[in-house]
């Protein structure tokens, strides 16, 4: 009998807690804040941090921010932005150029890529690109450091040669997006002239590729240049000696009507973007992925340290 009461009590507690989750609304007496912006992001660590940084800076300036972080992927964010589901998210220049504006040729100069994307996106899609961050989060292919040293593989050309000599050996991990993107795997294997054996290509969640590689489930994996786990797990990124990968500098992209309503967004977010160097971004990613801070904590600490919020 006692057991049953305990069970009821636990059930009730769970329901009460669940109820609390939804109750973030302000008490009725307070005046509703006027300035409202919806911030979105893709689903990986760096994007969650960038969205948090944006949110904190805007809240600091008196905005009310709707959090739509962690949307499924590039195209979902982009569509949400185009149809007004979100007002701003951080997109990478190379991704926009090749995937969204459907240019055939990648541009490897960061400034030039930014200029083209900014101009064309405003003209065609009514989207405003704010200042871009100096860090370049391009794709990389990674190996375990000891293996790369033992086999003498330093660049993607070395890898191509090795794969061609050992056609049935190398296991490769990638996420669904890189494997299918026109500027991703299909174009890479064409330029460098090699192919991983189809039955050795393992497709999986992008968050798991680093672990899969370091635990020797695969021998080569795709990753992101600013991901802290490359260093933390003793992996190495192979040099892109034929300059295949385009540049991917991120910048906040804002819907034009929102920009017209709140022109101060540029002054608020441009200084933030300017401080996001490669080192800063790796450190932020490290804080979340390796030191297990929340994106919110990491963003807060960085903004305070840089003096970007009060």
């Amino acid at each position, binding site marked *: 009998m006692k057991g049953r009461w305990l069970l009821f009590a636990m059930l009730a507690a769970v329901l009460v807690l669940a109820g609390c989750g939804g109750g973030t609304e302000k008490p009725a007496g307070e005046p509703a804040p006027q300035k409202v912006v919806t911030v979105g992001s893709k689903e990986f660590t760096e994007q969650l941090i960038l969205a948090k940084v944006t949110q904190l800076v805007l809240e600091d300036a008196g905005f009310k921010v709707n959090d739509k972080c962690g949307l*499924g*992927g*590039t*195209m*979902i964010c*982009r*569509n949400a932005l185009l149809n007004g589901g979100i007002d701003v998210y951080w997109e990478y220049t190379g991704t926009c150029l090749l995937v969204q504006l459907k240019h055939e040729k990648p541009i490897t100069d960061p400034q030039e890529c930014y200029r083209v994307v900014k101009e064309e996106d405003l003209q065609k899609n009514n989207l405003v690109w704010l200042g871009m961050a100096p860090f370049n989060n391009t794709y990389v292919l990674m190996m375990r450091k000891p293996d790369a040293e033992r086999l003498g593989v330093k660049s993607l050309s070395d890898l191509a040669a090795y794969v061609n000599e050992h056609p049935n050996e190398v296991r490769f*991990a990638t*996420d*669904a*997006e890189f*494997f*299918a*993107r026109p500027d991703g795997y299909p174009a890479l294997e064409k330029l460098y002239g090699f192919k991983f054996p189809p039955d050795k290509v*393992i*497709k*999986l*969640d992008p968050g*798991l590729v680093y672990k*899969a590689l370091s*635990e020797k*489930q*695969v021998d080569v994996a795709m990753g992101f240049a600013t991901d802290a786990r490359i260093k933390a797990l003793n992996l190495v990124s192979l040099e892109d000696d034929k300059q295949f990968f385009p540049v991917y500098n991120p910048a906040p992209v804002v819907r034009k009507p929102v920009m017209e309503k709140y022109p101060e967004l540029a002054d608020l977010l441009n200084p933030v973007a300017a401080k996001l160097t490669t080192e800063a971004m790796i450190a932020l990613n490290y804080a979340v992925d390796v030191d297990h801070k929340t994106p919110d904590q990491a963003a807060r600490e960085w903004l305070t340290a840089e003096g970007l919020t009060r």
Partner: protein
Amino acid sequence: MGFVDYILANPAEFLKLIRQHLVLVGVAGAFTIAIGLPLGVTLTRPRFQRVAESVVGVVNIGQSVPSLAVVGLAMGLLGLGFRPAAFALFLYGLLPVVRNTMTGILEVPAAVIEAARGMGMTAAQVLLRIELPLAMRVILAGIRVSLVVNVGTAALAFLIGGGGLGDLIFTGIALMDTPLVLAGAVPTAILAVVLDALMGLVERVAAPAV
């Protein structure tokens, strides 16, 4: 009907994914039955009835933890690919089989069992000739639910490198390519419906309505 075009344009790839999907569900299902059924029976024996609820509580974990988390945890134990995916599906499908086996057997009227004992049957005979046949409909219903639900859950196997139709679904989501999502999702739904109908047939043959 763009997704049909996709399937027709890539028949080999599509068949490979269907095969991976079915093998995942099949292997996981075989283990679920091979372990879940004896476990369910054991837990109804008088000697084990006291621990039955605790054991079911443990089995419950496979169901109550979100399926995505089960898949992720399995990867921590078994690495990448087929084995952790099959293991996660096995865990996920265990509860309905164990629970229904227990319920089916415990619902056999005590008077019937009493009569069987009175006729001189041993415990094993009572189980095989009275309890299991009378519980068969409920047991099969549990297996049916387990298998059909796992056809859908197996789409998540993709996330830990297990392949299957989730490949098309997740690639389609990443590229916002609706036909590609449907090329994975519609066959998954059809597989579930067909498997459900087949299990219905098995039920009717193995446990005809009394």
